[in-house]
């Protein structure tokens, strides 16, 4: 949790303490070299025409205008919005409920927690290949069980593929967020629940008026990770469908990759990359502004 200790105003503020600034230098240098520098490079490249082989040619704003006006880019942007929103609507409630459930101290819940946690240990390429085989209408689950809904062409039907992908991505990431919520719930002091019980609050009311408000910052953290994470999510989608069928799952990160490393149009690919960075930054700034995480303080004053 992101508590800041600002709650003791009575003492005179001592001179700045904590580790000296130079301890941050290696991390900053690393970040600059491997994050900021390439980012700057991509920004420059987004104004250039380059096929990966010859000499990059300056093209100015032309590439930006062309890429932004391209219906394919817009369609990919819209698909990304759907992907992010539906992913969030699917993952957030499931993760919250699972987290609250596994936070209980009962044995069987611990056993479940271990099982739920497993997908987090698998590599996303492995998850992708396994799900692709399971969802295969010819050789997948439908062969093991009686045919029916299982033989649906999940990844091959342009109307279903995006949602099938969202489900698999959710399956892979829910455990992580459930873990966040589990930790969050376990930090809520038992005294709050005792007080609520004394006041005659039932299970639902305890969840609604004690657990949820206490989880506020966990929700902010988890939601930010979920939204920004699915905005730039790539590997599982790439393994599952590669953007297909047609372009049904060609979300922006895939569009960037395919444009850059299949069509070898580094300029437009860089435009999409810059676009993704901008949207991602705006989104996380917006989230922290709305949720007030910049002003985060402990809500447990008096409870401990």
């Amino acid at each position, binding site marked *: 949790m992101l508590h800041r200790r600002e709650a003791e105003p009575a003492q005179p503020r001592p001179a700045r303490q904590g580790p000296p600034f130079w301890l941050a230098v290696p991390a900053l240098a690393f970040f600059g070299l491997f994050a900021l520098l390439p980012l700057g*490079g991509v920004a420059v*490249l987004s104004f250039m025409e380059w*096929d990966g082989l010859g000499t990059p040619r300056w093209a100015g704003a032309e590439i930006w205008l062309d890429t932004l006006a391209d219906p394919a880019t817009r369609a990919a942007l819209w698909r990304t919005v759907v992907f992010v929103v539906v992913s969030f609507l699917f993952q957030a409630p499931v993760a919250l409920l699972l987290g609250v459930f596994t936070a209980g101290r009962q044995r069987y819940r611990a056993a479940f927690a271990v099982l739920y946690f497993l997908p987090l240990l698998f590599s996303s390429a492995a998850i992708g290949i396994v799900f692709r085989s399971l969802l295969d209408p*010819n050789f997948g689950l439908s062969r093991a069980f009686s045919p029916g809904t299982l033989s649906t062409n999940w990844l091959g039907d342009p109307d279903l593929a995006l949602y099938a992908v969202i489900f698999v991505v959710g399956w892979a990431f829910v455990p992580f967020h459930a873990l966040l919520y589990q930790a969050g719930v376990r930090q809520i002091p038992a005294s709050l629940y005792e007080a609520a019980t004394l006041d005659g609050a039932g299970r639902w009311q305890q969840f609604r008026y004690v657990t949820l408000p206490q989880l506020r910052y966990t929700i902010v953290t988890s939601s930010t990770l979920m939204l920004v994470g699915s905005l730039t999510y790539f590997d599982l989608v790439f393994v599952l469908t590669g953007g297909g069928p047609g372009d049904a799952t060609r979300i922006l990160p895939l569009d960037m990759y395919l444009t850059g490393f299949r069509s070898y149009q580094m300029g437009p690919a860089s435009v999409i990359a810059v676009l993704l960075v901008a949207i991602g930054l705006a989104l996380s700034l917006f989230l922290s502004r709305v949720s007030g995480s910049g002003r985060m303080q402990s809500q447990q004053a008096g409870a401990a």
Partner: protein
Amino acid sequence: MRHTRLRAAAAAMVAATALTLAACGGASPGDSTDAGTDGGDDAQNGEGGAASAWILTGGGWPVTAASFERWNGEHDDQPIAVEEFENDAFKEKIRTSVGSGEAPTLIMNWTGGTLADYVANDQVVDIGAETADLTGRVMPSVAQNGVIDGVTYAVPMNDVQPVVLYYNEDLFAQAGIEVPTTWQETLDAVATFKDAGIIPFSLAGQSVWPELMWIQYLTDRIGGPEVFQAVLDGEPDAWSDPAITEALTKIQELVEAGGFGDAFASVAADQSADAALVHTGRAAMLLQGSWVYATFHTDNPEFATSALGFTSFPEIEGGSGDPANIVGNPANFWSVSASASDEEQQTALDYLNEFVYDDEQLTAMLDAGSVPPVAGLEDRIAQSDDAEYLGFAYGLVQDAPHFQLSWDQALPSDQAQELLTNLSQIFLGEITPQQFVDAMNATL
């Protein structure tokens, strides 16, 4: 010099982008001999003629790997460092490395648009004079793919890969029909198999590129090779040729008639699921490259020896193309990197002249069930284990008036990607032939 630096910087940028995409491969190959080079300098490699080459995994590639092993065993002073890559990983990596002047000495390619790019940027050298002996032994229809504007920049190095029609003989016997040789017979066979609950044609729609084989063959049968040549030449509105529209219409008719079943978009070729449908008796026919023959033998030897049939693509009634024409990949090719030192280039050329399609490699290829594009092998093929299939494929290639290189290889990569996307939408019924034609004309 300025350009080199700019190019190297740009390549570094791309590499960094690739890293952020978690496309993490191994260490950069080729560094074993020249660690600590600073990019793009020709005189960097003082030591002898140690060359390098990148090859692929799977298929017939072990034959090539063995050939390099033999070379290294006999040439201590001219070793060739070999790295193996998975197909897609290779395609991404080779481009960046060629662009940054760090390419291996021997650059493998499929000719077509990629080779044209390399040539346009002076990244491969003219090897016509040095390899005349080798190209003289190769079938002209294959060798000519490595020639651009009359100059030989690439020479074939493995098996010729025509696309053929495989079928399950048992299923045809059960249905009591013959293998289709015309379009009408094809439609009839589709109806018969569909009624019997069998997928008429297995198609790996998830991989998309197998769908190209259909449009390539149909266009060639209907309008001849000139139609696609016009596209390659960049003639305005070349995609508007009526032959292409008719081919697209026929494809959509076939899809609607249930010719590919209703789940072809979930079938992936990289897991050989399309071949599996045929050898498990759930699909009757498969239009695929000659390499699938080996897949059948590995995955289901019993089926492959007893019930696997193969033939050429049906004729189209009223079409002006020669029914003996074939499509596919003529072969993989070797080019020699322009950024390699003279010694490295010499090693590479020596290897090409002495070891490519030498006696031992030919034997190894025939044993593996692949067809070398070398003239005059009839007798050796007749004595091989797979004489029937190899003889069929060899004859197909030798008698073909025209061998069409796969369109996605022949076209520049940005156009090829457009083609694949639009074609998959044609198969899914999401766009009409006219929309396809308009979209593709816009790329010319």
